[in-house]
């Protein structure tokens, strides 16, 4: 693969320079921008693989810029911001950000997140849920992938853990398709994120599937939605309606 091109957007000149230096030292090609205009000109000039976007760009609002970019571009965006409260993260995800890093960050973390997002985008299979813009309906359930909120048939919100959410997204993107444990784990994008689930060949995944069943199945002991396919893996065996938000 060619060297990934990263656009660093921040209104602090020195920080821009430091990030550019750090990322280029780690094998990326880095461009910098400080305004919405500059971002647009960079995007129009050529391929950008990832944007690191500050939420507060002086006068401009990074969230709004993200929304504008999303209208035309599929380019992955990571928000980098000191505004790290829950609502702001939500706001970031809801306009189509792929990740959210709080300032100040550890440099290793920045690198890991950038690599993770790039890896995710390279796989077309996971594109379906990466954009986070669908509302899914199955068996009376509603799952909003934008906000990762699930509502049961009684319209009561049921909270899912982060891994359960990712697992559900994988299944929702592939209804009626039998997925092997390896396929599921790889589509969940949890390799290298320190989760035990990727370590021991599917045992942890079974536990996770059991947990998800406990939440979405009427009777988790004889699942009607998330069925086991003996010797292969799992299948999401129900009609899924997908609506763009």
């Amino acid at each position, binding site marked *: 693969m060619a060297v990934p091109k990263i656009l660093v957007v*921040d209104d*602090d000149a*020195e*920080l821009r320079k*430091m*990030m550019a230096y*750090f990322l280029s030292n780690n094998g990326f090609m880095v461009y910098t921008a400080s305004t919405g205009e500059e971002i647009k000109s960079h995007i129009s000039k050529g391929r950008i693989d990832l944007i690191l976007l500050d*939420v*507060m760009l002086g006068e401009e609002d990074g969230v709004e810029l993200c929304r504008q970019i999303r209208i035309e571009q599929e380019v992955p965006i990571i928000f980098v*911001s*000191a*505004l*790290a*409260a*829950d*609502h702001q993260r*939500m706001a970031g995800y809801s306009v189509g950000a792929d990740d959210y890093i*709080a*300032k*100040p*960050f*550890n*440099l290793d973390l920045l690198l890991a997140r950038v690599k993770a997002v790039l890896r995710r985008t390279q796989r077309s299979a996971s594109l379906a849920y990466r954009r986070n813009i669908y509302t899914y309906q199955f068996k009376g359930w509603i799952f909003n992938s934008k906000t990762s*909120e699930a509502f*049961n048939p*009684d*319209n*009561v*919100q*049921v*909270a*899912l*853990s*982060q*891994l*359960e959410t990712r697992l559900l997204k994988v299944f929702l993107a592939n209804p009626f398709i039998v997925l092997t444990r390896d396929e599921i784990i790889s589509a969940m994008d949890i390799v290298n994120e*320190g*989760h*035990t*689930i990727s370590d021991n060949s599917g045992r942890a995944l079974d536990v996770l599937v059991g*947990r998800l069943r*406990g*939440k979405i199945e009427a009777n988790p002991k004889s699942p009607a939605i998330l069925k086991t396919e003996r010797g292969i893996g799992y299948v999401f065996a129900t009609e899924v309606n997908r609506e763009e938000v």
Partner: protein
Amino acid sequence: MKDRLNSLKSRSILWVIMSMLVGIISAYIWSYSGTQWERHLNRSYIAGIVLFENIKMGEQPPQQIEIESLSGQISKLADAGLFRKLPDVAVSDFITQLSLSPGEGNIRNKNSISITLISPDIQYPIANLKINSNTSLSEKFGDVTRMLSSYCSEPILYMQYGDKPWIRVDGNEIWGCDAAPTDYRIISMLLVFLSLIILISFISNTSLAFQSFAELLSKRGLNKRTGNFQIKGPAELRSMIETINNYLDIEQESLARRATFLSGVSHDLGTPATRLKFRAQTIEDRELKERLNSDIDQMTSMIESVLQYTQSEMKLEELRQISLQSLIEAIVSDFQDANHPVKFIEQESLSVSAKTILFNSKPKLLKSKFLSAKNVIIFARPLSMQRAIINLIDNALKYGRKANVSLQADSQKASIIIYDYGNSESVENLTHLTVPFKRGENAKNIKGMGIGLAIVSTIAEQHGGNLSFDKWEQGLCAILSIPR
């Protein structure tokens, strides 16, 4: 104008005037009716006297009274006292007989008078008649006709004065039921009652408006929207609600301003802190680099927690029905997935034990209750609730070794209990920590701002619940109670 009419003052004046008017009207009706009645009785009394005198003198009776002398067979029947057999007396008619004599005693003499009353409706209570023995016979007879007029009936009188022949007297135009004036006294009583009922319902409506507003105000934490109550009720209440709305708007505005300000500060600090991180990267001394990094982290986590506290005060989220168990499970799973020693202990038998329930003869029924408690659904702000539980677990991990979470629920409230292991704080100290920017004694070496518990406490209050602490065998436990 409409407002002025709607004020408590004008309302109460209106009510007073209205009830006074109603009182006057019903009093007038009452006395008018009474006078009419008295006149009716007097008229009969006088007619009786006149009639008696006429009979005595053998003159023509007054105009409205018809007199007919009995003759032949009929007269003989009357003489024999066989009134039942008279042609115009029906079988069902009541017959009342009396005789009046002048002076004391009722020994029959030639001046005494025999009266037989024939009525289709009643037997007249002659015994109740208080006849003054000092009065003349005509006055005594007047008392009888007066008594006749006080009942609603159409009596026929057969009379014999002394040895004179029996006569039949029909004076119903004077003492009959139709001649009586309509009695308006019941109507005036009803009027008074009606106006009383209307008045009471007006008053209780008004006081209810105040009461329900007070209730709304006390439940503000569970309000869907942030401020603004609906403006209704009497003018005083309206202006009160308006003032409170204004105050809430101002409070919300100032909270928002504070949040914006803190966001700005936080952001402005974030950039140099990030720069510091990059600069620290170039430091060769590994230990120094790590210390510098942790200093920067501590600084920024302080800023972040201040920001979170401000935001928790602002109630940005909408209330929603949420399955509390799933929320706790999800949070615990997230902690577990990040390799933190956190466990969710499912409550097999909930704290409501059978002996606390009076009728425990049906254990099966009870069990089904426990099972349904597994789906504890509360009305809450999901992100805030999540933040509160995460903070409590974080705390337990920070100050104790590990955290166990359990959920207990009854019909009134749901309690999330976070047990830690080895926390040496006292319950009192922890309770003090729910005030922002306080830290415990043993917190010197642990990063944090002591604002985590203040956030939890604020969130609990916004949900109408509360945060408390208790000791258990191996440490402390935090109890977050939310009404259901």
